């Protein structure tokens, strides 16, 4: 089969000494940074981006993928052992995992999370291997109008799923779109919003926006609401090697979680929260030990963790085959591709098979490395959780500064970073989700280009978006995503009022 051949070729690329080294460095860095509290996967990738600048594209992306997967593994360790989870997708793991840790079964929780992540990561990567070429064939049928509709779908799902208020999600998105407008309009060469500055002609880098909103903004915000007294770290007790009943209760949730997470990650559905919550609900339903849920049920860790990692791999499908990022982390990786002058999409598969298949092959390898790193060596990483916060955040800002300055050796970039960081602080303070801004910023220019191309081809006929079946379908789904939740909520309220009255 063509796909298997391509994959084998990819392995031949991934198994070279230097690429293995990059994979190892990537997963280690990803795990370490992922464990550090306060740093989610998007920020992990953004902060470590400068490390990849000097490398060749293949090595750089292999490292990147390692960082991405490693960040997910590291994050689970934190949510199990620390009783104050941050990342929304990790909250579920924290509920059961932390309870398990408190009852002296922390090691089993870590084990089930790590092995589940490995199983899910591998299954999802296999799915990626076979789905990607199919998606590429489909993508070739996409015209500009369809791409535009797809991006509108991504916009609506990102704003209506993340955060507590659609209006605030929209506002965040609009802010991102506005930032994306700064610079030269590609189609006509005209300057937009550059305020006469030569620097701004190139626009603002996504890296600056991501690092600003995530790193600097987070630091300001945590500084304003500091936790006094140390967060309690559960000591790891029990054996890492799970006993029979623990294995027995874990393996089905691992599989269910893997199959649940992948499609959600692959669809523009805004992230890993939905599959992890769904997995938790399903495991609770199906469990023979329902009474343990809330007090440390191992299924509640196994399933959601698998779903989480599987969704993370799923995100790579639209990213690599369509060039469509479906999460803030993916948006940053897209920016990284663009920095190298590469545009993910169907063309990438045919022009750079070494890169794409080498990347996919190294995902398998990276997953395996992560299992080894996270299971036996977890005791070492745990010490990182105790890092004093003043030093942690100091370090974060030093690296944020370094990463931003090294983009183009410009102090103006630093000022932009800090200003955007302050805006990120305000956003967090007033309940505006930050991820839509990053996605808006990177997808905005792409959406505009596709829209104008579609209009140029149709000679100014707006109905082209509704007459093409693919475009129409996507727009209908987008409308549903936007209007269905509030409608359903309103219907629910009316039903409840009728039942009560």
């Amino acid at each position, binding site marked *: 089969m063509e796909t298997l051949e391509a994959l084998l070729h990819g392995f031949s690329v991934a198994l070279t000494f230097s690429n293995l080294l990059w994979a190892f460095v990537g997963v280690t860095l990803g795990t370490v940074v992922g464990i550090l509290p306060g740093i989610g996967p998007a920020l992990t990738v953004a902060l470590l981006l400068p490390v990849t600048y000097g490398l060749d594209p293949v090595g750089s992306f292999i490292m990147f993928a390692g960082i991405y997967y490693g960040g997910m593994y590291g994050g689970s360790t934190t949510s199990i052992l620390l009783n104050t989870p941050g990342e929304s997708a990790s909250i579920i793991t924290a509920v059961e995992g932390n309870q398990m840790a408190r009852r002296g079964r922390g090691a089993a929780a870590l084990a089930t999370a790590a092995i589940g992540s490995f199983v899910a990561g591998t299954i999802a990567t296999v799915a990626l291997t076979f789905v990607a070429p199919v998606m590429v064939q489909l993508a070739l049928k996409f015209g500009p109008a369809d791409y535009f509709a797809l991006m509108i779908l991504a916009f609506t799902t990102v704003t209506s799923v993340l955060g507590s208020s659609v209006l605030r999600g929209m506002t965040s998105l609009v802010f991102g779109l506005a930032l994306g407008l700064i610079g030269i309009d590609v189609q*006509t060469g*005209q300057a*937009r919003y550059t305020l006469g500055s030569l620097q701004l002609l190139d626009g603002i880098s996504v890296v600056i926006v991501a690092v600003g909103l995530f790193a600097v903004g987070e630091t300001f*915000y945590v500084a304003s609401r500091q936790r006094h007294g140390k967060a309690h770290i559960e000591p790891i007790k029990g054996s890492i090697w799970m006993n029979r009943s623990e294995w027995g209760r874990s393996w089905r949730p691992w599989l269910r979680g893997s199959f649940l997470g992948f499609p959600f990650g692959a669809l523009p559905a805004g992230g890993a929260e939905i599959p992890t919550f769904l997995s938790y609900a399903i495991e609770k339903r199906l469990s023979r030990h329902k009474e343990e849920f809330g007090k440390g049920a191992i299924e509640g860790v196994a399933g959601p963790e698998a779903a989480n990692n599987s969704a993370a791999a799923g995100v790579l499908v639209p990213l690599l085959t369509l060039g469509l990022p479906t999460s803030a982390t993916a948006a940053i990786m897209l920016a990284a591709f663009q920095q190298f002058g590469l545009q993910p999409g169907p063309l990438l598969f045919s022009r750079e098979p070494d890169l794409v298949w080498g990347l996919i092959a190294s995902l398998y390898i990276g997953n395996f490395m992560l299992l080894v790193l996270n299971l036996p060596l977890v005791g070492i990483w745990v010490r990182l959780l105790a890092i004093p916060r003043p030093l942690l955040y100091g370090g974060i800002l030093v690296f944020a500064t370094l990463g931003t300055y090294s983009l183009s050796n410009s102090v103006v970039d630093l000022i932009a970073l800090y200003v955007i960081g302050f805006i990120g602080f305000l956003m967090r303070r007033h309940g505006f989700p930050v991820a839509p801004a990053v996605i808006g910023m990177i997808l905005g220019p792409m959406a505009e280009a596709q829209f104008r191309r579609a209009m140029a081809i149709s000679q100014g006929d707006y109905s082209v978006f509704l007459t093409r079946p693919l475009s129409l379908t996507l727009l209908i789904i987008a409308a549903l995503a936007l209007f269905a939740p509030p409608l359903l*909520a309103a219907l629910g309220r009316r039903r409840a009022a009728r039942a009560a009255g």
Partner: protein
Amino acid sequence: MDAGEGGAGGSWTSRVAVGDALLALALIGYGAYLMVGAGAIRVLPVYSRIGPRFFPYLVAGAALLCGVLLLIEALRGRRAPPEAGEDVDLLARDNLRPVLVIVAGLALGAALMEPAGFVLAATLIFASVALAFGSRSIVRDLGIGLALSLVAYLSFTRLLDLTLPAGILPL
């Protein structure tokens, strides 16, 4: 934790949310700026259909709309809950003084970056953040900051071939 709820967002209905209202006004101002800026974009006659002004006008309009809706929400006293995090204590009152300390540190750092070099600027930034987070031992923080910045500088310039300003240090 809301995972899929649309519009039913804001919680505490109390007095006018001043901070939110100010933000909404700022957004309206930004929308106006975007609108004016869109008009300033040069349009060549060839592209008079969907030209470089189309999207800017669209985004400007969206910004104004969001600003107005947010202002209405703020005046009604509807707020959205601030973000949760591993190190965030949501019950604590929010305290702007540490934020200002960090801002000062960053401003100084940016100013000193090129004249004094990365290592010194980064040390300053590190120490100001540590101070903002309640660390009392300034000397120790400066020491750790210096060590960290030096290691970062050396690994990025020697190992990864990037350039960072050396400033006044003989690096």
